[in-house]
């Protein structure tokens, strides 16, 4: 049986703050017993003061363990104090529904706390009960808060309906967020999203603006159904990132028409086939 996220987070936080490890363990344990929200608030307030705000240091093995304990959980870019705060929330036991406690915490959270609270979403008890609070976070104008839900977080993949998923992807493009860190991006593609994104691209082009090449990733599998060939052809004539993305999308479409278009760009198609270009690397790495 894989280790629980709680156990991993306990170990990581204690390992990185050995001089505070005893205090942390005591706190985690007593929060699991007392169910007292005042204690929880106090702990959440004290953590950055006692641990500092450095990044959580994780090895590739740690990240692999995280993914085993909850598929798609990627705690990269977490901070030490944030990890300790989430550990406390996971350890906390109370008779009050967790969603009430959570909403209350969001209500008074400062900017960094908000990011932390949302990063742990998928790991909390009864995560499906948190959808209202998650909606608030998605509507946030603070990009980092939005991204704490959207990036490296399996919650949207596991709990968003199609409408919310599609609007999350669209908003990510609107605010200039990357798509590739979205967990489940390829498994949750759908024709409706492809249509929305194609409309969005046309609207941008009409305004004389460009679109993110990542957009084509969600269009490719439905290129035929949403008639995306003209748009992809335009992307094929664009800057290198657009060309690579269009090729990747056409390969995902895998239709006769897509294959014909790919024949017009044999050089890029070959690079993709060789694995030298992919959605995380739309331009060639400089030769060392």
């Amino acid at each position: 049986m894989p280790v629980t996220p709680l156990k991993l987070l306990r170990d990581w936080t204690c390992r990185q703050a050995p001089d505070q490890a005893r205090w942390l363990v005591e706190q985690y344990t007593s929060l699991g017993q007392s169910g007292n929200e005042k204690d929880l608030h106090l702990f959440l307030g004290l953590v950055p003061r006692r641990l500092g705000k450095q990044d959580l240091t994780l090895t590739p093995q740690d990240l692999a363990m995280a993914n085993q304990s909850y598929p798609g959980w990627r705690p990269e870019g977490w901070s030490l104090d944030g990890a300790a705060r989430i550990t406390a929330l996971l350890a906390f036991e109370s008779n009050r529904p967790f969603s009430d406690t959570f909403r209350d915490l969001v209500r008074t959270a400062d900017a960094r706390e908000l990011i932390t609270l949302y990063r742990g979403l998928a790991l909390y008890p009864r995560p499906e009960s948190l959808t209202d609070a998650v909606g608030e976070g998605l509507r946030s104008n603070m990009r980092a808060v939005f991204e704490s839900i959207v990036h490296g977080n399996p919650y949207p993949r596991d709990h968003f309906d199609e409408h919310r998923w599609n609007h999350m992807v669209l908003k990510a493009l609107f605010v200039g967020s990357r798509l590739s860190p979205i967990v489940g991006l390829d498994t949750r593609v759908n024709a409706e999203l492809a249509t929305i994104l194609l409309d969005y691209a046309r609207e941008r082009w009409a305004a004389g603006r460009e679109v993110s090449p990542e957009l084509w990733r969600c269009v490719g599998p439905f290129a035929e159904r949403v008639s995306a060939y003209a748009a992809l052809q335009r992307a094929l004539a664009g800057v290198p990132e657009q060309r690579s993305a269009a090729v990747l999308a056409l390969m995902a479409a895998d239709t006769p028409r897509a294959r014909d278009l790919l024949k017009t760009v044999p050089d890029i198609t070959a690079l993709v086939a060789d694995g030298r270009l992919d959605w995380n690397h739309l331009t060639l790495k400089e030769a060392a």
Partner: protein
Amino acid sequence: MFIDPHAHMVSRTTDDYEAMAAAGIVALIEPAFWVGQPRTFVGTYVDYLSSLVGWERFRAGQFGIRHYCTIGLNSKEANNEALAEGVMEWLPRFALKEGVVAIGEIGYDEQTPLEDKYFRAQLALARQLELPVMVHTPHRDKKRGTSRSMDVCEEMGLDPSWVVIDHNNEETVRETLDRGYWAGFSIYPSTKMGNARMVELLKQYGGDRIIVDSACDWGISDCLGVPKTARLALESGIAETVVRQVTYDNALAVYGKSGQMQAADWLDPAPIDQRTLFEGNSILRGGRDPLVEAPEDRRRDRLLIE
């Protein structure tokens, strides 16, 4: 580099943030205060406090300015007892947030019994949480109100070196300094202090324990009060060290006692803050394009909106 230790940014525009950053303001403190009309629900007040530690902090970060705040129940709204009781229950939770550098701005407006009650209660809270205090001194009956504010701080057992008495003028500064408090001066047109008068005060008193701020808010006020006063002072022959004391060092010294504000926050921010709170801003990542035109000029002269 300047700190504006008293600025109500919820009432200001992005043009102001841009102008402040361009003028060299690296950090500011937003005291919780009255927003121009009374709040009538506890919840509105709670959301206001929440915006000080959340949204407004983020907004400032977009312009490369570090945003801190003080938490408190102001004197005007202390007169609504039902509201005041409700707000007092929430204050400790907010006071413990990161970046909260003091309890404030608190004190007297009309010097009523209710104002007195909640002023004292919040001084006790500041002592308990080991936080500095920012005291708003009244506009009317100022001299006596200021003396009384300090009397009460001492009655409540506060150390004057942890207390900033703000909105001083020529009539109150002597006593404030003699009693060991920090003396704040708000460079605020018409009603508080002009910067030419401020320069005269600096000539007379030097820079020890004197703090210049803009107190800019929803009224006719100038968010560049601190940098403009610094320039005027330098042009008037005030020593650079004194100017630096009153526009940077002193504010950092007193509000830094909270443990929530240090120069490293803007000189060498934690990676997590750079990735999140300072997204899109390059000033702290070394090298931002110099602003060649002042925002006001741009606003007037640039016809294209893209």
